[in-house]
């Protein structure tokens, strides 16, 4: 119960504080919309919020799934082979260091008009790095004793991976996935905002900007936050199921 009420209570305090701040300073809408302005904005565009929200969500999830597949693959290669790690790591770091905002127009030009592909691609590119790093660290820090015990029993590399390396890496993996979820949303929205005639919440934000509909822009931000929170907690639940053993019980 407490786990539900405390966050909701915190949310209400936050909204009240926000409303009060705007009211006290008497800020106009273009400076800062207040929560009470947002609801009408949601209501006016409720259809678009639903369809575009879905658009943003599935693109983000697909991008994330690809990031997981590619990230785990890279992580495994780097985790098991020192040579591959030495070779790939600088490449990945360099790739990750490039601000994705600069990649967005390039990708947009590469696949003109293919909004879905573009968006998923950016979501993937921005979010796979932490996954790859976490899996490779998880695997390369596997205590050599595990390997000796299992190999001395005649276990194959695959058995060692399934029985020990993979489960042992799950806590690190989920830690990275939480970061990746947020990053993937950023990626999706970067592309949606930049793509002309795009769809998704990013496009809705852009149209708010074009039409100087400031409450709409803030409403989009809130919608994004809600989606982000939802997806984040999906990961938290999965983590509890698959890597709950790693939690230090504090109570």
């Amino acid at each position, binding site marked *: 119960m407490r786990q539900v009420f405390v966050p909701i209570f915190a949310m209400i305090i936050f909204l009240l504080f926000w409303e009060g701040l705007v009211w006290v300073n008497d800020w106009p809408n273009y400076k800062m919309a207040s929560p009470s302005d947002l609801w009408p904005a949601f209501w006016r565009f409720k259809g678009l919020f639903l369809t575009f929200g879905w658009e943003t969500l599935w693109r983000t999830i697909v991008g994330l799934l690809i990031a997981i597949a590619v990230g785990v693959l890279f992580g495994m290669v780097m985790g098991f082979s020192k040579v591959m790690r030495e070779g790939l790591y600088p490449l990945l770091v360099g790739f990750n260091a490039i601000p994705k905002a600069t990649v967005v127009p390039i990708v947009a030009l590469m696949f003109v008009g293919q909004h879905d592909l573009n968006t998923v691609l950016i979501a993937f590119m921005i979010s796979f790095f932490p996954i790859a790093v976490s899996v490779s660290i998880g695997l390369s820090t596997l*205590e050599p*004793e*595990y390997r*000796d*015990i*299992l*190999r*001395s*029993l*005649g*276990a194959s590399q695959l*058995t060692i991976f399934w*029985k*020990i390396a993979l*489960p*042992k890496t799950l806590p690190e993996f989920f830690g990275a996935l939480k970061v990746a979820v947020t990053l993937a949303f950023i990626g999706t929205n970067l592309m949606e905002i930049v793509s002309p005639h795009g769809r998704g919440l990013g496009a809705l934000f852009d149209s708010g900007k074009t039409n100087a509909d400031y409450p709409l822009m803030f409403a989009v931000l809130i919608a994004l936050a809600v989606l982000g929170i939802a997806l984040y907690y999906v990961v938290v639940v999965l983590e509890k199921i698959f*890597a709950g*053993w*790693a939690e*230090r019980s504090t109570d």
Partner: protein
Amino acid sequence: MKILNDNDLIVIDGVSHTFNTNSGSLPVLDRLSLSVPENGFSAIVGPSGCGKSTVTRLVAGLLKPDEGSVWFQGEKVTSPRSTVGMAFQNPVLLEWRSIIKNVLLPLEIVPNDLSASDRESRANDLLKLVGLSGFEDKRPSELSGGMRQRASLCRALVHRPEVLILDEPFGALDAFTREDLWLTMHRLREEEPFTGVLITHDLREAIFLADQVIVLSGRPATVQYNQSMPQQGPRSLDQLYKPEANEMLNILREQIRIARKGEEPAA
């Protein structure tokens, strides 16, 4: 020196081994020969880094010697064989498994025709023997260091290996816990037939547990000294505090001193 004897289970015959490291080649073993009789218990002591763990990896078939050969029941060891159980200083239990599931791990890998309930009763028997009854369903993180090491011993023995390899298994435990585990080891030896190879840096532990104590020289290691214990099999802790035991300790301490003298100075 070639040791060949009918009741020897493990024979290491003139083994030399060199590792290639970043800083060049590192000769670790130099024409090392030793043997462990079936159901015997041999302790190997020597300066740290002299190659003791390398010897255990050779016996387990995890490593092939450059020169010489390792024999197991008259057969040459060329690859890992599941007739070996291993336990290390780090008990490396799988945190996501309960204690009994940890103990059962080898039975999931080694081919066997035990039913699920047979396996469990086997694991339960062992856990009982080491005093872990009632902890079957606990997570490793809920156990003390000594208890984890007990669980690790059970895992090493659950598939009834012929050789139990212990690489400094009690090194991280406090003195009292260690003495408890020594007694547990003797109990296990009485109940479970196995041949033991114990690596240790604790000379008391060596003379209390082993039938034979082998002192290795500094790297590259060879057998420098081999001492048979006057008493074989189980013994009581009191004996450790008798003058004979002290005499034995002094002899071994002197041998270790000699072994360390031959060590290359630390770089």
